[in-house]
């Protein structure tokens, strides 16, 4: 398109900012401020005593009770939860990617007649809710001795992660240039070698995005953890157990909030570091 000659001020664009715009902008900033305040308030609350939290919720902590975190970590079993959640995240993320990446590659680049039907079969999984599959999974896992096992839960996370990962990765592989594959083929590399040594590393950024998105999802996953685990715990289960048992063990909101922060802070840090990748990954998944 050609551009008409416009002075910079005429290119000011889009919308003349009417009264509507100006009356709504404060609303947007109010929302932004509220979000930030809530997080700051949560962090401060997790360092107070419960008494201070309830009686003077708006004031600065009279003293910083770092012991809240120790209580949460040990007595609230958040430590065990964090460990298991980390194992689950890494195991299921890596497992899901190692399984899905070759499939997505083949489906997007092998130009097989079967590719279309197979892709649809995978993508249907995006619409299968957890509530539709948990009973058979529980029954079968129970018989196989996989209930209350982190490995069993990991298998579920891998399987349920496949449709979304495949959906994003097929789009990603499709966007990579084909010349490298051809060059590799000329040099005598088989497809297997070409994939693992050339295309897989080339897809690094897409794979990392998938890993991060799934890690965020699984860090706080509650439903399957609740169904499958008994004595073992994940981070979200520790939080859940602590919250529902407070009516018996006394209202230790400060420890509960320390637990909340243990759950949220890693996400916040990750988000500050990788924010753009996360936002773009999510937006990309929807828009193509």
């Amino acid at each position, binding site marked *: *398109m050609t551009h008409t000659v416009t002075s910079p001020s005429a290119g000011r*664009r*889009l*919308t*003349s900012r009417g009264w509507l715009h100006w009356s*709504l*902008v404060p609303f*947007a900033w109010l929302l932004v401020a509220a*979000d930030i305040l*809530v997080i700051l308030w949560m962090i401060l609350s997790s360092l107070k005593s419960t008494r201070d939290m*309830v009686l003077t*919720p708006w004031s600065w902590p009279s003293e910083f009770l770092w012991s809240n975190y120790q209580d949460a970590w040990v007595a609230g079993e958040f430590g065990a939860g964090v460990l298991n959640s980390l194992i689950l995240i890494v195991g299921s993320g890596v497992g899901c990617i190692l399984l899905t990446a*070759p499939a997505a*590659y*083949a489906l997007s680049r*092998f130009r*097989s007649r079967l590719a279309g039907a*197979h892709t649809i079969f995978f993508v249907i*999984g995006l*619409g*299968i*809710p*957890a*509530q*539709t*599959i*948990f*009973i058979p999974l*529980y*029954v079968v896992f129970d018989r196989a001795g996989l209930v209350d096992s982190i490995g069993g839960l990991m298998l579920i996370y*891998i399987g*349920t992660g*496949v*449709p979304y990962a*495949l959906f994003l990765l097929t789009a990603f592989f499709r966007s990579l240039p*084909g010349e490298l*594959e*051809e060059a590799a*083929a*000329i040099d005598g590399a*088989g497809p*297997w070698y070409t994939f693992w040594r050339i295309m897989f590393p080339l897809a690094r950024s897409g794979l990392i995005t998938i890993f991060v998105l799934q890690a965020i999802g699984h860090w*706080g996953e*509650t*439903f399957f953890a*609740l169904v499958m685990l008994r004595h073992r715990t994940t981070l979200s289960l520790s*939080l859940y157990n602590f919250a*529902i048992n407070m009516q018996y063990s006394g209202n230790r*909101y400060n420890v509960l909030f320390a637990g*909340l922060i243990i759950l*949220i802070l890693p*996400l916040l840090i990750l*988000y500050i570091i990788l924010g753009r990748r996360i*936002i*773009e990954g*999510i*937006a*990309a998944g*929807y*828009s193509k």
Partner: protein
Amino acid sequence: MKKGVSVTTMPAVASPVPETASRRRQRLRMSPLERSRRRLFVPFVYPALLVYAAVMVAPTVFTLWISLNHWAGAGPMQWAGLSNYTRMFKDPVFRTSFVNTFWIVFGVGVGVFAIAFLLTMLLHDMVGRKLARAVVFFPSLVPGIAISILWGFLFNYPDGLVDTLLVKLGVDHPPAWLAQDNAFKTILVGMMWLTTGTYTVIFMAAVDRIPRELYEAAELEGAGPFARFRHVTFPLMRDIVSVCSVLWCVGALKTFEFLLTFSAQDGALPSPKLWNFAMYSYGEAFNPDGVPDYGISSACGVIVLVLTGGLAVLSRRILRKDSVTY
């Protein structure tokens, strides 16, 4: 070297042979690369396919079967035909769940999309849009269970944060947000807050791709903000809105974590007044206070699946029309 490559192998690899061309001709034109790749289709695709089928597809089929039987998880199944479904629809708790699910999908859905649109329009040319977008998005990354605990604390009666604030502001009788009749509405608002960010981000990405000229043209024609939205933005975003509404339905129907911690009564699960389909399905199978009824639980799971599919098709139909290219 590279030139040579493209000359010798490109025609076979890259020429878009239509799928309808006769297979024989295709085979003749297929390069060795293509042929060796086809042999590897199964080893590449099937490991993922098998795990996916084992964890998601087979259980779905099995759930269909269980929903037609009486089963407590142990012992033999007993053929029940459709009686699980008829019993379920007579259960008042299921009816409440139905209404609540409806409110989550449509009530919260309309709210979320409306706020997301509004924010999109606002943030479009606001100073500091990147920051605002980043902050507004963050709640949607936080696990539902964490937000619901926070929500329960903020709206506790009478010593929750919101009510103490209202008292300070001079309100004599602050509302009991989490009392039986109000709790669900409070939860709905919380869900809106939780999910608005996701859709704002997606819509913003979509709006950013709309060419500026269209807005300038509209403005020259004298279109105000509403007219610009109605005639430029919305038609061009229709496709994305349609995809988003499908994904919203899929996600909203299985809302579970956010409800889980609102256990007003003692007992592990929230009061049945707050149940939705997901909670009902879980409660029928795993309620610590009840007898497990896998048949009913599965029937509810099937209903959720059918609704998911139905709503997905419906929202594609309604919003698709003819998509506009630009």
